[in-house]
């Protein structure tokens, strides 16, 4: 099951890379890609995902599509924030490492959460604890309390990510 | 307009080179190398835009992959562990 899903994803990536627009479809390329994706799916499928049945929940894809505009909005805000801090002559920074707590448990959910935190204003994930604690480097520390920092950094993503990955 | 873009990217790569040559700790140098790799992806994209040749996008993709793997390997090395984790 895991291997089948991985083979399918790899074959789609292969089609993206080699589709000839406006010319005839080259069957040899497709067949070679099919066998290569079966081979690599068979080899690497074991460590691919923990729970393959989550790939078939249709609502998860809808929430994933709803997650993209949120991420883009916070990404643009983050870049304007960095531009302000970098171009200001006095460098208005007050860095520090704070600790936040998250409710997510699955590995892929934690990965996406850490990546999103890195792309949002002023924060970068440094270390993930096994108990659901994240250590976050903050470029302008507003509070070092765990609850308040969680409210300010993690909540805006967690609500949607719970529906996608849990 | 494209000339301005090339000048921006050249300034970017010189700033990265400054950080690579100056950086006080090894980590700083690795950050410079990582960012320089992504700047090269930008160059390839703009050359694809100018010449409409598809091949440069392949270079961009593989450059992004290899730069990421190199950064991961060096950071594991800095961490003081083996490569097998």
């Amino acid at each position: 099951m895991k291997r089948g899903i991985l083979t399918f994803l790899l074959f789609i990536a292969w089609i993206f890379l080699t589709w000839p627009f406006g010319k005839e479809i080259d069957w040899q390329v497709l067949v070679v890609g099919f066998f290569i994706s079966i081979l690599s799916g068979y080899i690497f499928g074991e460590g691919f995902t923990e729970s393959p049945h989550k790939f078939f929940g249709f609502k998860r894809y809808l929430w994933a599509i709803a997650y993209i505009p949120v991420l883009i909005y916070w990404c643009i805000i983050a870049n304007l924030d960095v531009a302000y801090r970098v171009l200001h002559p006095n460098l208005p920074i007050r860095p520090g490492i704070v600790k936040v707590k998250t409710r997510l448990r699955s590995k892929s959910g934690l990965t996406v959460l850490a990546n999103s935190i890195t792309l949002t204003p002023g924060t970068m994930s440094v270390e993930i604890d096994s108990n659901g604690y994240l250590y976050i480097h903050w470029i302008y520390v507003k509070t070092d309390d765990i609850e308040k920092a969680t409210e300010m950094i993690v909540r805006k993503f967690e609500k949607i990510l719970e529906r996608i990955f849990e | 307009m494209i000339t301005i873009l090339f000048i921006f990217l050249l300034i970017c790569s010189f700033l990265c080179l400054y950080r690579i040559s100056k950086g006080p700790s090894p980590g700083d140098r690795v950050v410079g190398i990582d960012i320089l790799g992504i700047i090269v992806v930008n160059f390839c994209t703009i050359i694809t835009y100018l010449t409409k040749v598809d091949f440069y996008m392949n270079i961009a993709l593989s450059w992004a992959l290899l730069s990421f793997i190199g950064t991961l390997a060096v950071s594991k090395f800095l961490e003081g562990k083996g490569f097998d984790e």
Partner: protein
Amino acid sequence: MREILSLIFMIVGGFFNLFGCIGLVRLPDIYNRLQASTKCVTLGTCLTLLGMMINGPLNSSLKGFLCAIFILITAPTAAHALSRASIKAGINLWEKSVVNKLKEEEK
């Protein structure tokens, strides 16, 4: 119209790249540098790729889409690995930093 739109996207992406690299030089320690450069260069590259995708050959557009997804996944992961490695290697924060929860817990 499409040419103007793609040029605008590319110029904005170039500005963001420039800000990221200025941050790489100006900020004081490795963690701040990683933050500024990773954020700005990731969005800048995605905007440049988007500009190419709007007005380019269809083949390259698909490859550019894959490249954008790939960079959005890998650049924060590389930043995370590097910052964790420098914490483990014992590189300290900037001397004017406010809190360091990671060090407080080790004591």
